[in-house]
């Protein structure tokens, strides 16, 4: 038989901090964005170059 609680669970207040730090996320997605831009422009110039 399962252990029953001896007392009511106290609701622990969930602590909120000032807001998650998204600087790393922004840097990562901008890096991805740069990759997308560079590859897009690269392929476009290849296209212009060829006949």
């Amino acid at each position, binding site marked *: 038989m399962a252990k029953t609680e001896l007392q009511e669970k106290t609701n622990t207040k969930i602590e909120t901090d000032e807001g998650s730090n998204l600087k790393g996320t922004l840097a990562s997605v901008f890096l991805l*964005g740069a990759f997308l831009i560079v590859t897009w422009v690269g392929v476009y110039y290849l296209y212009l170059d060829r006949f």
Partner: protein
Amino acid sequence: MHMHKFEKAWLGFGIGALLVFLTVIGVSAFYLGNQPPSCLATIDPEKVDTTAPFNEPGLKKVEGKEWDYELVFVASAFNYNPGEVKVPLGAKVKVMATSKDVVHGFEVAGTNINMMLEPGYISELVTTFDKPGEYLILCNEYCGIGHHMMSSKIEVVE
């Protein structure tokens, strides 16, 4: 609804990039005329060998058109007619091709000439051969047992 300023930044970047890409491609397609190769003209696949211009495949000089030559190819399983052709350097050529039987591809490797040849339809594309060399034409649309052997050759000569 609260949006983090970084989310606004990323969305702005994404939408901005999309607008730039679409504008560049849009101008290229509708103003500069870079469109996918197709003509929408139809042809009876059983009568290809007797329908002009496919009754005489190969390179032909033309007058009074925006291009100087017409290069006509007929694809069948598993070959291209002509099997090789010489094109003068700098020539503005309209490449026209169709298939006699099944769907074939028509890609001139290393160039922007790449189109599907569907039986019943004529595909065309205008280009200027401004780089000398030997170019392989290959079939890039699976067409049967001999698909990988299907090829032709364009030599751009001075």
